[in-house]
């Protein structure tokens, strides 16, 4: 029979200690930086190393590992380290940052009110998507505020899309008020009508 059975392999020597991981993160080969980025989540001062790595690392695979480690540490400071990428011109960086923030919803929650008031409407739009991962009551409050005051129809449309999924019939008046603020915007009117039909179908 061609089937064979072997013993577990000897694991590679674990990376241990801040100095080794810091050195590998800065000067290692691709694989060493990948391993170091993953190991940094276990260090007491991993956040410091990962924040610095976020500035210099350009390999998407290793940046992915850095983001995962930040999500594992999961403090508001970790989310803060990711936020600059939400403003990147590179759509891959924006998407990666968004995914990482979704993976640390409690840490991201701290920053959501500020993000939803950000001067950049693109950031506010992405923030609406992040609200989706928040508890329903908190998400409803954050998005109700967006519908009531945001001056960009696209941002309101993003809020409407999330509310259509997470909200209930109680948000219908908010949708109507928002529609009244943008009487000349056919796309937002369409989005609100679809959301209204979906939410209105609920008991």
């Amino acid at each position: 029979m061609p089937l064979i059975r072997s013993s577990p392999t000897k694991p590679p020597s674990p990376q241990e200690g801040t100095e080794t991981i810091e050195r590998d993160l800065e000067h290692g080969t691709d694989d060493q930086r990948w391993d170091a980025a993953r190991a940094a989540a276990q260090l007491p001062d991993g956040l410091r190393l990962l924040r610095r790595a976020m500035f210099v690392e350009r390999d998407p695979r290793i940046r992915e590992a850095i983001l995962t480690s930040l999500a594992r540490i999961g403090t508001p400071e970790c989310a803060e380290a990711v936020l600059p990428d939400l403003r990147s011109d590179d759509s891959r960086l924006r998407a990666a940052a968004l995914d990482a923030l979704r993976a640390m919803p409690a840490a991201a929650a701290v920053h959501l009110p500020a993000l939803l008031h950000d001067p950049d409407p693109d950031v506010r739009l992405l923030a609406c998507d992040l609200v989706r991962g928040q508890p329903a009551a908190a998400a409803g409050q954050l998005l109700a505020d967006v519908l009531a005051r945001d001056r960009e129809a696209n941002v309101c449309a993003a809020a409407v899309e999330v509310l259509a999924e997470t909200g209930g019939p109680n948000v219908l008046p908010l949708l109507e008020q928002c529609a009244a603020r943008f009487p000349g915007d056919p796309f937002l009117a369409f989005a609100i009508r679809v959301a209204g039909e979906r939410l209105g179908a609920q008991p």
Partner: protein
Amino acid sequence: MTEPAQVTKEEFRRLAEFLYRRTGMVFTESKRYFVERRISDRMAATWHASFSEYFAHLRSGAQSEVEHLINAFTINETYFYREDHQLECMSKDLLRERTLVKPPGDTIRIWSAPCSTGEEPYSIAIWLLENWRQVDTYNIEIVGSDIDTRVLKAAAEGIFGKRALMRLSPDLVARYFHPLDEERWQILDDLRLSVRFSRVNLIETKETRLEGRFDVIFCRNVLIYFDDESRRVAAENLYDSLLPGGYICLGHTESMSRISPLFEVCRFSNAIVYRRPREKIA
């Protein structure tokens, strides 16, 4: 089983969207009957008379109900040759690709994680012995891992009932099992002892690294149980556990693309699988 729930097209769309966002499971209209059946069972179990009431309950954040519903979709009795289109993809396409970079006599390593009570790793072994023409020119190492030591003990014993064997022909059962009594069969020792079982938690990097690197990993219907953070860690561990160019097969409702950008999507005639790139991502 209860009658299928009455779910409107719009309600089905919302439910599918909800499940995709929460779990990564993908349900199209073509799976409506499959979904409605399970929704009906959960509605009955939770005493909800209408779909809209049940959906409100589901969305209210009652995590246990989300888990119950996922279970209803994924945890059927496991059995031999389950989702055999992926096994066919393995022998027809994945191993053809892997043997391009491995000379005859080399070892092909295949990992079933989680392996539950062993049906999947033994199915892989039987399928290859029966269907892969190069089976005698390579060494094949199959490892089954699970977090649950009880199922691992059962897997190592290799004793199965009728239902587990229902997809196997009588000829296959006769050749690879011996009867213990009228209701139970045990995998032949040659086969049973050639599959190694180990306890591994997929989100523990130290544990996954102990198993080395594989050509093909079967990791079906487990990532959907993890939250976003654990899913990312598991995906990175699985990436580490693959040889460059190695493949990972997920459950038919799962999508790695939603979990991690580390893998390439590979569409073969029998299955969509994911590959660790041969080179680093550009």
